[in-house]
């Protein structure tokens, strides 16, 4: 009787276990409110779009949680997500401080974190559970500086950057990249994101006699500076940071204000380039009613690679981690391959606006530009 009861309990318990084995959960834990909500929303949209491609025989569950901007909220969201079913991998916040807080817990829980965070240190912790599907500043700023020096032939850049962690990191890598190219900026100044009027810094930059303006600012400040430069009659070439490629930044400006402006980015989905990219852009517009950017595409590629691993037979977080660590993946933006630390993206592009539309054209592609700059 006792054996029969044990068997019955075992069978009853076994039914949900067997059902759960075919259901993998991919929580999306991203900042949807706070100062990074613009980029976090793109990240969410990219992940959600990718997770609609359910592999045959597998039920994919996904829950979107707003992590805000505090590390505690991100850690709590990860703990909660880990406790709700079999998690395959997590689409994790692009906010560096949140990633740094989540990394030890991810290692403890043995959960792969798939992110587009640009913070260099997240892949320098020796943590095998993090995978970054967006080129870090070492890659993008190297491409940024190389385009200025090698393609435009400019050697007197004025660098205007944000005083945030994002801005400081970009500025440090720009300095290193310019130094590697034998160029010293004639002007460098940080600007607080709350600064309303950027004419003072623009005036000082122009007074230094630069031959190009190099920007590394967030979306709003980038548009603000470009507008003030246009109204001041500035004719110098301007090569901006990745915020410029975001369609929401270009939407703030008239096409004429964008004439001669270029920007570095991982990819520019709205610029097209292939039938697959166009299909992605169309799907994104249909699903979210807005234009995709490189963050959305990076997260889409990352989650698509995760699902490809699942399709190939990976049914546990560890199997997915091993696939992400070892395999190469041809995504829409580029080919992704881990460098052993979880850095999957090694390409950047330069896009330029011709003054007639808000859609930039691809000007130059750099595959692993850091190697060439050394």
């Amino acid at each position, binding site marked *: 009787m006792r054996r029969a009861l044990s068997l019955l309990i075992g069978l009853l318990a076994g039914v949900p276990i067997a059902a759960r084995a075919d259901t993998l959960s991919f929580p999306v834990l991203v900042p949807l409110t*706070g100062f990074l*909500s*613009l980029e976090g929303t793109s990240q969410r949209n990219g992940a959600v779009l990718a997770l609609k491609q359910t592999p045959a025989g597998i039920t994919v569950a996904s829950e979107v949680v707003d992590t805000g901007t505090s590390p505690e909220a991100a850690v709590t969201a990860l703990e909660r997500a880990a406790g709700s079913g079999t998690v395959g991998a997590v689409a994790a916040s692009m906010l560096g401080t949140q990633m740094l807080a989540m990394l030890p817990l991810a290692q403890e829980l043995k959960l792969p974190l798939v992110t587009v965070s640009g913070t260099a240190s997240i892949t320098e912790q020796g943590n095998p559970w993090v995978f970054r599907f967006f080129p870090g500043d070492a890659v993008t700023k190297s491409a940024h500086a190389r385009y200025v020096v090698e393609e435009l032939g400019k050697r007197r850049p004025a660098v205007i950057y944000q*005083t945030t962690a994002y801005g400081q990191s970009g500025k440090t890598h720009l300095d290193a990249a310019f130094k590697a190219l034998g160029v010293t900026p004639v002007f460098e100044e940080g600007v607080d994101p709350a*600064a309303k*009027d950027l004419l003072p810094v623009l005036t000082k930059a122009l007074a230094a006699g630069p031959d190009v303006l190099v920007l590394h600012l967030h979306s709003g400040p980038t548009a603000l500076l470009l507008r003030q430069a246009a109204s*001041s009659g500035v004719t110098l070439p301007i090569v901006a940071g990745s915020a410029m490629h975001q369609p*929401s930044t270009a939407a703030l400006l008239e096409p004429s204000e964008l004439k001669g402006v270029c920007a570095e980015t991982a990819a520019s989905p709205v610029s097209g380039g292939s039938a697959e990219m166009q299909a992605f852009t169309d799907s994104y517009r249909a699903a979210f009613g807005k234009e995709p950017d490189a963050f959305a595409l990076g997260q889409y590629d990352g989650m698509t690679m995760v699902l490809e691993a699942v399709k190939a037979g990976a049914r546990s977080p560890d199997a997915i981690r091993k696939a992400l660590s070892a395999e190469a993946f041809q995504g829409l933006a580029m080919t992704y391959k881990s460098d052993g630390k979880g850095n999957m993206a090694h390409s950047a592009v330069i896009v330029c606006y011709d003054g007639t539309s808000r859609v930039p054209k691809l000007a130059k592609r750099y595959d692993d530009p850091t190697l060439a700059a050394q």
Partner: protein
Amino acid sequence: MAALQLLVNGVALGAAYALVALGFVLVLNATAAVNFAQGDLVMAGGLLGVAAAPLIPLPGIVLLPVVLALMAALGLLLAVVAYLPLRNRPPVSVFISTIAVGIILQNGAAILFGPEPRAAPPLFGDDTLRLGGLALPEQSLAIIAVAALLIGAQQWVFGRTQLGRRLRATAQDPEMARACGVPVTAMILVTFAIGAACAGAAGLLLANRYFVTPTAGGDLILKAYIAVTVGGWGSVPGAVVGALLIALFEVGVSSVLSYPVALGALYATLLAILVLRPQGLFGEAVRRRG
């Protein structure tokens, strides 16, 4: 020439900040409570302008009365929801309730409009007037003119009309005003409406040149607080002067030093004023009036 251009930009920015600070100080005087939602009301005004622009495809100056009216209604709602039920509680209750309203406005705006920065239509035009080597954006000149007009109109209402006298009486001594037959609650509601309308005007003025996002209010409330502290807690002229001083630092000082240094200098100045003249620049006038 560059200095003149920076001066125009600084005055335009200061004029918009002055409207923010003015709305803040009016509510402060009328209720003795700090309205921490004032910055988010500015954001709401900017986004209202953005939302109304496709419906009324006319210059921003035509939108201005619409935004003023809608924001005044929002101010009334704010008073009814976050102030009147708590008016007999300690002031900290109103601090918290207005902070809560600000968060609701922020998240509501994020849901309705998304997180992208947006630009409201210009008041008259987007062109730049060129006088010699001077490039003067029409919007900057329009901001100065409209802000001066609104501040002047407000001064006239407060100084020369029966409504203004009742509002001032309520602000100075609500109990005495009530004893004299002034409908204090109605006056407080009107003050909230005027304060929110000021915020809405500032939002519309700022959102064209400087864009607006759902999170923009946090920085603006800080500036309003500094302006009122520098000018003298409760002083209307002080709030305007304080706002212009902030813009002077942001535009003038940062053009000589750098923005982070200018910001540091602004806070150092604020500390110096608090130490040397705790009542603020116009504090004595307030004390005499009381």
